[in-house]
């Protein structure tokens, strides 16, 4: 795990620039750094040494000096790939996975990515063909951003490195902001920074004298509804799943440093921890966040699981005040406005791992996307069920069962539940059927957009753009698979992995590893019939079946409790956090021009005095505050206004 930056095109000051760019992302690689610069191309690297501790320095060139790579991430099957390369007569000089990529590229060119099982972003300067190749892993675990200045392409693991390039300035992209305030994340390649893009997951970029081209090398693919499922025998499917999951975990335990695990107390991290504990000769170290509010805290389950596995367990307590305290730093690392505070406790958690002296943690992230664990999948099923018998007073009661942790819903009548969830009203063939209530509810936060921003956006519709990005065969998939695709292809890389995964871990130089996002497992799960994943209203059914011997019943039978953190009321502590008052003051908000300052003042007052605000108010508050902090951090605009 590491960070890199680079350029392709003319640059006379390349070495000095690369040193500035890599310094901006030094947190991603505190162990070593290196720079390779020529007038045509350059690569800079900061290294978090995990594999090949003594001989994996980067940028790394092949013996001829014609190929040079800068790499962020891990190739988990590098041992097997090394053996194959050696069997073909290749001589490897290092014990690193980086060199493996270089050899494979030498043999296969850009097609080498098809052999890589891992979380990666890398750049290879090919001086023979005078071209730069960029690549990003299939699920989008590792980031890669780029921009152009004149005819030169610049790229880096985080945007803050690109902001070191002369002429590149931070300016918010209104379309991206609209997308975040509707879909929770920008639609890649768009980022919140105008004119700064990201390479999409599972994509390659080739830059040469003819220009820049990008293409997908892999796609999440589900079967047509009319096809016979690849798996019909549940027991056999569970056995295959268990074997795949064990192997995905096994290869992710490969490291020349100790590997720990996050343990939330939920099913997914418990499975990963249990598998990992059985694969390490040392006592596994596990790490958790606890909350003071009972609504969010899962410490009883964490302790139960840690005791069952005999792990060396550590926890960090996260108070509402802690969330507010670290929030500006969180935004500096997410590099995007967010509408929930959930990344903040994960920022604290990676700090705990860093203090413990570990560099690598296994996590259960991804299981909800791959095995249909999110409530939104069940919700869509209930909405379809209600839609088939509109006007039913009984069916809408099911919505309460979906969200037992939301006290507000318990008090709603069936009529209101049906109305809020759009049960019966939404067209069943809407490609966004599963996500429409979420998107609609989130978009209501755009009430706070200023008149100027509304005018600039005109009649732009983020959901229409999303529909335009769906694959041609999307409509032929089962509704559950459509919902899984939306979650996996857009929300996972655009929000979960970026805001809660890579960026929060790497803020403290910690590498997260995700067995559930092994592409073999993802492809396997996509072939399973929907009812093996969501059985009636039991989520992740096949995963529970495949792992029931690993977990105490208290954990194995747990209904999913989504990971949430206290939202707006975190920022209303007594006399605390002048930055919140400054960021949301009428003067600052007016100067930034994105939001209606008077409306924001009313919202701030409402959230401060009535902490039991609903989703919409919370999302708007966190979204507006994080946008204002984003402006301050990256453009200085808000800060100047406050000081004026």
């Amino acid at each position, binding site marked *: 795990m590491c960070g890199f930056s680079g350029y392709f095109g003319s640059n006379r000051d390349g070495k000095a620039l690369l040193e500035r760019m890599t310094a901006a992302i030094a947190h991603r690689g505190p162990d070593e750094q290196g720079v390779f610069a020529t007038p045509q191309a350059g690569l800079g690297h900061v290294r978090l040494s995990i594999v090949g501790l003594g001989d994996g320095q980067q940028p790394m060139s092949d013996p001829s000096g014609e190929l040079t790579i800068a790499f962020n991430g891990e190739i988990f099957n590098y041992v097997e790939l090394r053996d194959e390369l050696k069997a073909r007569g290749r001589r490897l000089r290092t014990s690193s996975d980086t060199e493996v990529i270089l050899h494979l590229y030498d043999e296969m060119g850009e097609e080498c990515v098809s052999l890589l099982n891992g979380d990666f972003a890398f750049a290879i300067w090919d001086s023979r063909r005078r071209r730069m190749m960029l690549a990003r892993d299939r699920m989008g675990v590792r980031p890669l951003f780029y921009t152009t200045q004149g005819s030169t392409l610049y790229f880096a693991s985080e945007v803050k490195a690109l902001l070191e390039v002369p002429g590149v300035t931070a300016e918010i992209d209104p379309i991206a902001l609209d997308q975040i305030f509707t879909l929770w994340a920008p639609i890649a390649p768009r980022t919140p920074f105008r004119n700064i893009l990201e390479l999409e997951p599972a994509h390659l970029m080739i830059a040469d004298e003819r220009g820049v081209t990008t293409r997908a090398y892999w796609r999440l693919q589900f079967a047509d509804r009319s096809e016979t499922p690849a798996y019909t025998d549940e027991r056999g499917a569970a056995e295959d799943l268990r074997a795949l999951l064990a192997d995905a975990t096994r290869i992710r335990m490969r490291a020349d440093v100790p590997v720990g695990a996050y343990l939330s107390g939920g099913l997914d991290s418990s499975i990963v921890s249990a598998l990992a504990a059985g694969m390490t000769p040392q006592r596994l170290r596990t790490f958790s966040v606890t909350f003071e509010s009972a609504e969010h805290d899962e410490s009883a389950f964490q302790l139960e699981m840690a005791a069952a596995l005999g792990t060396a367990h550590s926890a960090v307590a996260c108070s509402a005040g802690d969330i507010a305290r670290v929030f500006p730093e969180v935004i500096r690392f997410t590099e995007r406005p967010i509408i929930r505070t959930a990344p903040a406790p994960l920022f604290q958690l990676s700090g705990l791992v860093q203090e413990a002296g570990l560099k690598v943690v296994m996590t259960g992230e991804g299981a909800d996307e791959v095995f249909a664990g999110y409530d939104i999948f069940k919700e869509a099923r209930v909405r379809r069920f209600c839609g088939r018998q509109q006007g039913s007073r009984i069916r809408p009661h099911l919505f309460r069962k979906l969200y037992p942790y*939301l006290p*507000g*819903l318990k*008090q*709603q*009548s069936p*009529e*209101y539940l049906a*109305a*809020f969830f759009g049960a019966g009203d939404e067209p069943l063939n809407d490609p966004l059927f599963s996500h429409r209530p979420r998107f*609609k*509810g989130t*978009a*209501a936060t755009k*009430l*706070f957009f200023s008149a100027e921003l509304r005018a600039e956006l005109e009649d732009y519709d983020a959901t229409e753009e999303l529909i335009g990005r769906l694959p041609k065969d999307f409509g032929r998939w089962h509704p559950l698979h459509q919902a899984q695709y939306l979650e996996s292809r857009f929300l996972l890389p655009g929000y979960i992995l970026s805001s809660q995964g890579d960026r929060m871990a790497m803020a403290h130089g910690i590498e997260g590893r995700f067995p559930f996002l092994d592409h073999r497992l993802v492809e396997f799960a996509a072939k399973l019939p929907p009812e093996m994943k969501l059985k009636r209203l039991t989520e992740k059914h096949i995963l529970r079946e495949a792992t029931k011997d690993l977990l105490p019943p208290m954990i194995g039978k747990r209904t999913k409790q989504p990971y949430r953190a206290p939202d707006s009321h975190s920022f209303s502590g007594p006399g605390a956090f002048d930055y919140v008052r400054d960021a949301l003051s009428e003067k600052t908000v007016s100067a930034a021009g994105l939001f*209606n300052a*008077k*409306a*924001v003042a*009313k*919202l701030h007052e*409402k959230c401060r005095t009535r902490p*039991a*605000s*609903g*989703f*919409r*108010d919370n999302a708007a508050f966190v979204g507006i505050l994080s946008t204002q902090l984003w402006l301050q951090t990256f453009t200085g605009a808000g800060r100047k206004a406050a000081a004026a």
Partner: protein
Amino acid sequence: MTQTVKDKVRTFIIENFLFGDTSYELADTASLIENDIIDSTGVLELVAFIEDQFGIVMVDADIVPANLDSLARITTFIEAKAAVPVTA
């Protein structure tokens, strides 16, 4: 100056759910749910407002869209429930 029930409710909705956005044309019969003006917590806020401001005790059967999903419906409901006309 007296304020009708409808005016009071309109003011509450504009201040509490539209955060003072007076440019929003809140038609008497417009659905508060379909127009994304209230969410599930908002309904409870609305109920608390009606109980506090108009001295009405609302039972579960009262809390349905038929009574509360538009300015006109809320007004009709309050006027039917209230023992005496309400003025400010």
